[in-house]
């Protein structure tokens, strides 16, 4: 149905934009092992994006590429947190920590969805996201406890990114209309907070006292970063309308 497709689109968009951000690290990581690890994560997440977008597209007779390359900024439904720039390695790790704990809870729950396709995609995704989560946790602890410099950088990363936390948990019509199919983001918040608080404690870090941005990515109202990301992502495809690759 159109509503299920809309929901799948939100999941696909988050994954697509995050994959695009993460893929930038390949050939730029602090060590070779991380080129591999971040590349793996990007690849996994791109895989999730493709599954969700392909599924969403079925309802509208569109391909994953139609949706990825031929929508305008205001048609994307991604969260602001995934749009945020990579920054230094610690910023990327904190973004991963915030998002992968969230996605892990979300996909786990979604395996129970009455929509079999969403459940099946999530069942595959949750295993991979579990690894992403572990990767982010290990690095958060390592950098939080590493040196004074690394701890300071992690505190800074938390301050930069924390304003985009509330948006993740906001229930929108797209969730509320799909009982037993979609997961209500608000229902994940307690578990998410418990988990991330514990990780931060292990890392010697704290939840920062920042404001919360009025972010409405689900409604197509995006941060100023998304336009640049899309310009780069779509430039080649758009130069060759109708071409196959």
């Amino acid at each position, binding site marked *: 149905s159109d509503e299920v497709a809309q929901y799948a689109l939100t999941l696909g968009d988050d994954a697509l934009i995050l994959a695009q951000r993460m893929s930038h690290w390949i050939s730029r990581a602090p060590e070779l092992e991380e080129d591999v690890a971040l590349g793996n994560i990007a690849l996994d997440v791109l895989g999730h994006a493709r599954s969700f977008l392909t599924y969403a597209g079925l309802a509208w007779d569109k391909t994953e590429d139609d949706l990825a390359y031929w929508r305008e900024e205001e048609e994307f439904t991604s969260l602001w947190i995934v749009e945020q720039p990579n920054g230094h390695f610690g910023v990327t790790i904190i973004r991963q920590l915030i998002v992968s704990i969230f996605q892990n809870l979300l996909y786990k729950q979604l395996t129970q969805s009455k929509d079999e396709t969403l459940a099946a995609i999530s069942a595959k995704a949750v295993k991979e996201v579990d690894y992403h989560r572990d990767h982010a946790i290990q690095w958060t602890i390592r950098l939080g406890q590493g040196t004074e410099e690394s701890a300071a950088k992690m505190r800074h990363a938390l301050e930069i990114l924390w304003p985009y936390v509330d948006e993740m948990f906001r229930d929108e019509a797209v969730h509320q209309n799909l009982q037993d199919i979609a997961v209500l983001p608000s229902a994940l918040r307690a578990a998410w907070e418990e988990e991330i608080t514990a990780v931060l404690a292990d890392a010697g870090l704290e939840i920062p006292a920042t404001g919360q941005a009025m972010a409405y990515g689900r409604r197509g109202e995006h941060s100023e970063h998304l336009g640049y990301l899309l310009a780069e992502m779509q430039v080649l495809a758009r130069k*060759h309308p109708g071409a196959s690759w």
Partner: protein
Amino acid sequence: EQSLARFDALIDQDSRVEPRDWMPEKYRKTLSRQISQHAHSEIIGMQPEANWITRAPSLKRKSILMAKVQDEAGHGLYLYSAAETLGTTRDEYNEQLLSGKAKYSSIFNYPARTWADMGAIGWLVDGAAIANQVPLCRASYGPYGRAMVRVCKEESFHQRQGFEILLSLSRGTDAQKKMAQDAINRFYEPSLMMFGPPDDQSPNSQQSMAWKIKRFSNDELRQRFVGMIAEQVKVLGLTLPDPELHFDEEKKQWIHKDLNWDEFMAVIKGNGPANAQRLERRREAHREGAWVREAAAAYAAKQAQSEVA
């Protein structure tokens, strides 16, 4: 003397030399240089392709390209491991790369200007690499030969993917066809030069062949490669930028145009289009990752200490 005799016997019998075995210092040095150069090439070779990951024109191609570039990081990792068995650490090898002392495959000093370069690099550059590397799977040094087996398996996969990119373009719009032909035009000659100078100007090759590191001469490998792509380009319906290219039935060999060895040497010396950019990117990643590596080391030290206590 006994050690040398044993080493010679291993080579003679086509057996493997292993890290624990005695080996001539020059053999060690040659391998150390060759394997680490190979590793460096994988690492620097990520850059031209990484240049198109964020702009790949379909999600499928993006995914394949990401996997490929990531494989190259993996190849780099196990080649460094093989090289480390010769007594030099990865940090030392890395230092040689960053300081500009160590070389890497010169072809990566050309920019990847269009999406079609992803095809040409896969088909021609990986193709030439495979032609070079397949015989190395039988290299006399065990860790190197075994690393090459893994590398070759993945590379031939990459080559096929590169060819498929070009095939799609060649069957596409006029602009796509043009893009594909242009990429082949730019990568043809540099890929032929990947096999190194002609045999009569390649003094080190003899010793490497005697040691069974190298199994075929530069020209032999180049012949094999150019014959292969001369056939494959027909499937693409495109051409190689070499009007002189033909098989000489009498000499039983492929004749190709004279290659621009002056340019080859200039690029090796650091004057290629992208040498400065490639090295600086590597240095930048190293520089900006320093705090991360330091923190990881500090954390590991703390952990080790607390385990002892």
